[in-house]
């Protein structure tokens, strides 16, 4: 009989408006690639991908849920952040509306999933490098992030800048919590009997 449980240790959810680059962020992390020729391919429903990471010689699996930014899936999005240990709330650094939306998601998570660690992620940094101005000003974002005690990353999925650092940080933060470490170790002992594959490669 099947038991509908993920085979992942750390459930991460990506949230944010449509077209901020959640799917691109995921693709950057999973396959380290970016498809520039593709116009915005709105996610329909949600998508899932998992990847094994290794921190301090401890291997565990990240399972990432990429949600649809579009309004019509909003009611379904709850399903995906339920039980998430970490959330990456994305906004487009040149799009004020997406920033407002990001703040909404932060509030939502704080009230519904208290144990979920929130990471704020400004995307499309490459556009800033080309000379566009950030809206809102990055100072405001940084102050906001500091105020709610969450980490802020400015990334570019196009160039790959800071994306792996973001996921590294999430993995490290997770494993530094003794409770999480404990459950990961337990899972390792359980699987160790069946598998003796002990290769370990550092992430990033």
């Amino acid at each position: 009989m099947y038991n509908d449980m993920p085979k992942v240790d750390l459930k991460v959810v990506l949230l944010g408006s449509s077209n901020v680059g959640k799917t691109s962020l995921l693709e950057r992390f999973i396959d380290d690639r970016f498809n520039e020729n593709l116009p915005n391919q709105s996610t329909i429903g949600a998508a899932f991908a998992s990847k094994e990471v290794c921190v301090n010689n401890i291997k565990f699996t990240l399972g990432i849920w990429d949600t649809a930014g579009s309004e019509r899936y909003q009611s379904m999005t709850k399903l995906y952040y339920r039980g998430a240990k970490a959330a990456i709330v994305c906004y487009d650094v040149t799009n004020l509306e997406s920033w407002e939306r990001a703040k909404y998601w932060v509030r939502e998570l704080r009230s519904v999933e208290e144990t979920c660690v929130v990471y704020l992620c400004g995307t499309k940094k490459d556009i800033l490098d080309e000379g566009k101005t950030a809206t809102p000003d990055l100072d405001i974002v940084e102050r906001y992030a500091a105020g709610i005690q969450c980490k802020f990353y400015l990334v570019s999925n196009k160039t790959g800048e800071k994306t792996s650092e973001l996921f590294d940080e999430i993995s490290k933060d997770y494993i530094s919590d003794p409770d999480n470490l404990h459950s990961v170790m337990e899972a390792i002992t359980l699987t160790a009997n069946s598998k003796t594959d002990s290769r370990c490669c550092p992430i990033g």
Partner: protein
Amino acid sequence: MANPEAPGVDDVIAEPGIEPGASAETMLVTTDSFEEYEQEMSNSIDDRQMKESTTSTISELQEDIREAPPTPTAVSPTEPKPEPPDDLELEDNTQQLSLNSLEIDPLRNTTWLAQRKHIFILSQAGKPIYSRHSSEDKLVTLMGVMQALVSFVQAGNDMIRSVHAGDTNFVFVVKGPLILVTVSKTLESVPQLVLQLTYVYNQIVSVLTQSQLTRVYEQRRNFDLRRLLTGSERLIDHLLNFMDKEPAFFLGAIKCLPLLPSMRDAISQTIVQTCGKIKNLVFAILLANNQLVTLVRMKKYFIHPADLHLIQNLVASSESFKTVESWTPICLPKFDSNGFMHGHVSYLAEDCQACLLLLTVDKDVFYSLSDAKQKIVEKLRRTNCLEAINESMNKASITTAEIGLPEMRHVLYKCKSTAQFWSPGFQPPYTTDEEIERLLGLYQCLHHRLHAPNRPLKLIFQQLDKETMLAWVTSGFELYLTFEPLVTKPDAINSVSKLLKWIKKEEERLFILNSPTF
């Protein structure tokens, strides 16, 4: 000119009883694409009252799929009188039209005006929702005119069907809370254009469900549907291009990936065995290159080709399915227009680009399906099935020349009992997109004549400038053929019978003749 032959020719072409690809077992709902149109034509007036169905396939999976078409009564499409808006004035202005004005005013842009087929979607209140060749919000006035035409005729308790001006057809479909309009300069007939608009409507239903669509407009008549459709425009865009290139739509049929029957059975059995224990799994569909590899279904449930076409469209227009596993809500309008199914969608492997869809009515089984998919792939790899799929995907389709029919250039063969069709690879002169679309247009003309409501034909032999066309419909199949222009009738008939024998010999590879269930 069409030249209906004496019925005696039927017997000459092939010995009776040959019906390649026929099977008593099928997983597809068989329909005549034309019936759909008749239903549409007789129904659309009542449609506005929206007889909300009380049964839902999804909530009552025990019950049989309801597929009872209301008795279609013959309707003679009314030819409305309204003249197209000021053609003369438009022509006067053409000289000054600037090519750059698309973003400002499409109506003053020559390229826009010259498009062969426009598609517009608007709400019954006249709000623009979609335009194929430009952004819809620049077309508020134009859509206002369309809405006015529709409601003017409605006021007389009638329904506007089409307007014909020179070589341009304006075709209207009013469905639920939406008005769909096409302005077409192609050779496609009104029923074929209606069918395409119906597909577009079904695509919207597939994204939102019929009940949600009805509800938002009940709550607010002037609702802006674009808010809910954000991100789905690409599905409509792709669907429209798809219909211009794919005969599957007007044939109402599905093409299968050629595979040895033993391989196909092994694939189906792998899916059956792996997924057998998962409750509420309704369909497992494996697609490769837009062709069906296999379809496993829950007993009692069938899938309609029109629903499968929408699934093919979804897969073909979503690049991201290739990297991740998707969990996609999808409404299949013919299966149950009021509810979502949940689809686990993923490609088999990096080295095997076939897309597997596992459709369920249970929204909490993602991880089970994800697990099942992994197991299916492992098994298929061990049994060399992935290799077999790849081999067939990478092989160029056989051409009629290779079959040994030198005077035959191309053919569409539809087996009616299974709703599947087969066509060979294109060969010169049909090697450019333009030529392929032209050929498809010729097939559509034949298709229309065979199914014309007032005078359906059984056989057409048509000698044209660049090719000779033959179309033949029997109780078992539909056949559309392209020959060299100077082929003689006896030679053509001779090669048709050779072709049918060849298809019969290959039927187990070209078609799916059984219908596996969980």
